[in-house]
């Protein structure tokens, strides 16, 4: 089955098994393994991407559902070697350990801060409650979110 998806601004095509998830197609057909495969059933948020601007778990979206639509992944956050302020803050705050949850969390935090530039701690916790991290205990992730928010507000 041929699917055509606009990924990070560029139309891409792949011939895929009809049961494939968007996540599998991104990772295995389109060379974009930044979205991670931690649970593949929508529990961990490590595959978070935007589908037509909406935050989704790419593992729960069939590739066919994404046909003709626009997907933005962690690889599309910046177009060059620079880091997005959220990425920068994750590194600075020590919010990265094994890093497997990190791309999904970065995407979720960018999504949060794009809609709510000054979230309260409760709002951050709620917004990130669908992203599992096994390493950090989340404290430094919270630090990173507030650091990024502060820097992005200027």
């Amino acid at each position, binding site marked *: 089955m041929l699917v055509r998806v606009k990924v990070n601004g560029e139309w891409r095509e792949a011939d895929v*098994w009809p*049961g494939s998830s968007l996540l599998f197609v991104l*990772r*295995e057909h389109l*060379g*974009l*393994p*930044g*979205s*991670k*495969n*931690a*649970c*593949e*059933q929508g*529990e*961990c948020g*490590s595959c978070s991407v935007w589908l037509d601007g909406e935050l989704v778990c790419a593992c729960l979206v069939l590739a066919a559902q994404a046909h003709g639509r626009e997907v933005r*992944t*962690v*690889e599309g*956050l*910046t177009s060059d070697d620079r*880091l997005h302020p959220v*990425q*920068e803050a*994750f*590194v*600075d705050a*020590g919010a*990265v*350990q*094994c*890093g*497997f*949850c*990190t*791309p999904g969390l*970065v995407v979720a935090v960018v999504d949060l801060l794009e809609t709510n530039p000054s979230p309260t701690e*409760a709002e*951050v*916790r*709620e917004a*990130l*409650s*669908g*992203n*599992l*991290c*096994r*390493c*950090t*205990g*989340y*404290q*430094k*992730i*919270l630090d990173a979110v507030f650091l990024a928010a502060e820097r992005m507000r200027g």
Partner: protein
Amino acid sequence: MSERVAERARLGVGESVRRVDGVPKVKGAFAYGSDLWAEGMLWGHTLRSPHPSARIVSVDISEALAAPGVHAVLLASDIPGRKTFGLDYPDQPVLAWDRVRYAGEPVALVAAEHPEQARRAAERIRVVYEPLPAVTDMEEALEPGAPQVHEFGNVVRHVRIVHGHPDARADVWVEGYYETGMQDQAPLGPEAGLAVPAEDGGVDLYVATQWLHVDRQQIAPVLGLPEEKVRLHLAGVGGAFGSREDVHMQIHACLLALHTGKPVKMSYGREESFFGHVHRHPARIWMRTGATRDGRLVAVRCRFLIDGGAYTSSSPFVIANASTFACGPYEVPNAFIEGTAVYTNNPPCGAMRGFGAVQAAFAHEAQMDKLARELGLDPVELRLRNAVGTGSVLPTGQVIRGTAPVRELLERVRAAPLPQPEPVDARGRRDPITLPGGVAGNVGRGEGLRRGVGYAAGYKNVGYSEGFDDYSTARVRLSLGSDGRPVAEVHTAAAEVGQGVHTVVVQVARTVLGVEDVVLHPPDTLVGSAGSSSASRQTMMTGGAVEAACRAVLEELVARARQARPDLEGAELTVADGELMADGVPVAPVAEFLGEPIEATREYHHRPTTTFDEEGQGDIHVTFTFAAARAVVEVDEELGLVRVVELAVAQDVGRAINPQMVEGQVEGGSAMGLGLALMEELQLDGGRIRNASFTDYLIPTILDMPPVRSSLVEEPEPGVPFGAKGVGEPSTIVAPAAVVAALRAATGRELNRIPVRPDDLVGLSGPVRPRQPWPPSPRVPGQRPVPEYVGLGAVARHG
């Protein structure tokens, strides 16, 4: 002539430098095991036994072989070499051939062009099983007539520690029985790797693991290849926590790759991951603690059972640890401890963060609270009165040589300000998100809330124990970079699993060599073993190896300088900021002496330890790290819901090489401990895992985790590199005990089993009662692991 280590280097030891792998990780550009890809690669899939105990009557692979896209279907009969593997004893079939001993045991392998083809082909393998009686209870496994998991019986190891006078008299005795559930490491990155057949008939394996060289020791004999033809390369590791210390997909992928002549990728899904790695041992603990009226511990009697599951893994060393730590970080002049690890037809258990000390701390800390209550003493005061310090004698007779700031740790968590009550609105109501269970879980308005505070202390060995001569290897090369500045290259096989060892070794190299530019080579088996990323050992061992190699490089540099500059004779030569210093004054750029690069390879060995003697006495552990925790919880007594309000954790770190990363370990370890206290347990039904998903096996979310107030006590440990102790495990050891102590304080309930369930908190279930007063001691030839007595030679010693 003395060469002092340079003390000055930007971004060196003691600074919270950014992780060396941070940028690729935030960009999604870091290549984990499951991200690997090769032209023309196949996907491997494992067929696993549905039965906890069965005889394999027949296997028919013809239909699977004929399925679309399939390149290979392999059974045990296709294995060219040894048919078994094992971390410490090779007792586990690579693929089962005559019988299976746990539900989830691998039986057959498939390689196909698409993972879905491989999965569907595996469904077409016809295995006829004859189910056999299974033993799935650790006490039943020790009863006469129980089904035998192995021909030599159901005892993995029985450890007996006798110290002082076991029948010592005490004024007050408290008694307790405790259980801990089977926790899973649940690293977010699944088991994954890529095996690529090589032209020399060997194989290159790119894999997410904790210990490349011990994997190779187990892989090569199965493939029938010499070790040098099996080259391992570390892929990105998405967390480990012990789960990757045993081999999972490594041998399978290599077998398929060599059989098909094509690269083979294997990447477990989440469900398979729960079946594909070892777990934390469930434990049952009987304990009697005696003290004088004025609160001095006199004696501890302890019976410790752990369920090792179907194969040995690291169970012999987990029970040794559990037994040696059973009394807690307290001076106990008289102790009698018996620990038994048993085989059952449950999934194999092995290494997980805390390694036996977690289960022990849950019991000894509950006993301390019971005793405090009995004596009318403050629980922290009782701990302070009995805390070990440098020079204390442990129940094994081992004297604590290093730092042991247990009192300082306890005092720090006690002195931390208590969290304020939640603010309320004009109607006296709290923001519902602050209620136990949160907005979604709590249907009340906080009517039945009770707050409780609990304390715990605990400790853990750093490094491997029991006489194992453990080591790590580092190769360091100092040369001139293209910009003419000195650049250090560091090559070790240390597995970066998220803990930050790669950043630590770069910091060490900067500090010792006084250069800022450090290039880290990817870890592989082309350099000597670094040992495992476990036992809180890498900072000490690989940090030590890198330090030693850097010192050797420095020595050569200084020798060159002395030869080139006779005028410096008599001066003390050091290096800082890329400059050669004579008596602290810069005299020449280091670059001047690097016409030829300098290279050195060094091993670091820790001080020797001993095995247990017949009475369980010995200098068993290298050294120790301690922690104390205070938990503040709120319990909704009507709904049985819990909110941990705050954890305060003080940890003895020796010296923090990278304070921010150390805090990260304390915080993350606390989260894993909180998970064990409140939610994490693999549910077994007749040996079968029933909750192998993140829907059913819950790990703490950001809504479950409270702020962690971490405090690092830095008293440099004598005799170890930079005085730094390992930091990964202690918070996981103390957090569960502290959380449950706080729950007991809030509810008045006994709560002797973790994870604590809502039913336990409202009185619908628990406390658990022992099935027998004190399990009898099994007959064993001695203190060593039983597999050793029956001729299963050790592959690699552990501890």
